[in-house]
């Protein structure tokens, strides 16, 4: 028992050390985001280290049902989001989903979501893959957030078409990204990690006309 306790403690120490040295894909833009945001108009921030899991299972199969019981449902059509609590499942394709959960759900921070999904998958046909490092998350909020996105996204972002609580995989600023409308004036943009620098700077540039001082 004593040995197990020691190994647990050392594992946790290792995890803490790993977490202390990790950097998010847009961490170098932290100050630029703060400087380029204007409270009450448009604000940009990175939400680093969200737990992202790629889930694949064909709809209607027993495997999909088992996975759905862990996540709180799987979306059935483009744009839909299912989930429970702080876990959301985004629709990426007819048999492909992205589970988004807080950073604490990751196994490196003691979460059990991945293990729960993997045991639900068991030997069924499908996939549960940890993709947390694959994408980062930007949060764009404020009354001008839609106008900023409309500069580089061909989807109809008007509220009558694009409702809060939906997400689409599309192109923003000529790069592929997932656009998730979390509230009437708040969006999450999930680019791949290698595009984080580009899209962060692109968004800052697009925000500039709204978040700079008025020219007299």
């Amino acid at each position, binding site marked *: 028992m004593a040995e197990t306790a020691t190994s647990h403690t050392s594992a946790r120490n290792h995890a803490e050390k790993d977490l202390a040295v990790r950097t998010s894909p847009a961490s170098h833009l932290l100050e630029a985001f703060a400087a380029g945001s204007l409270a009450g108009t448009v604000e940009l921030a990175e939400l680093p280290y969200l737990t992202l899991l790629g889930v694949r299972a064909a709809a209607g199969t027993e495997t999909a049902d088992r996975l759905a019981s862990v996540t709180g449902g799987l979306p059935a059509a483009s744009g839909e989001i299912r989930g429970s609590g702080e876990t959301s499942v985004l629709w990426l394709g*007819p048999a*492909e989903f992205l589970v988004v959960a807080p950073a604490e759900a990751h196994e490196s921070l003691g979460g059990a979501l991945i293990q729960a999904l993997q045991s639900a998958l068991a030997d069924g046909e499908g996939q549960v893959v940890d993709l947390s490092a694959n994408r980062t998350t930007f949060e764009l909020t404020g009354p001008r957030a839609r106008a900023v996105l409309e500069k580089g996204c*061909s989807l109809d972002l008007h509220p009558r078409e694009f409702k809060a609580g939906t997400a689409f995989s599309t192109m923003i600023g000529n790069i592929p990204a997932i656009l998730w409308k979390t509230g009437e004036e708040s969006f999450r943009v999930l680019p791949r990690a290698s595009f984080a620098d580009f899209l962060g700077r692109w968004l800052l540039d697009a925000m500039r006309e709204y978040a700079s001082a008025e020219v007299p």
Partner: protein
Amino acid sequence: MLLIPCPNCGPRDETEFHYGGQAHVPYPKDPAALNDREWAELLFYRDNPKGAFAERWVHSTGCRQWFNMLRDTVSYDIQAVYPTGAPRPDSATTTSASPEGAVQ
């Protein structure tokens, strides 16, 4: 810019898609039996019709699924979108309108 109706995601910009060439090119039942000419024609020879053309497309930045599309190569009119493996639907107009200004 084409507005392509993806069967899973609805209408999206052409830039979200990739072209996959002519649809309904059957893989030979016994590839080893083909001579060099037949093999070259299978790999490289494609129709180039003026009018309705069945082609493959993939929604690469959306649902990442392949589908077939019947498109008019002159007017760019999208006549039908149907799943891969399904037979080619009848085209509404096989004789397409001449491009504007073309000498008749």
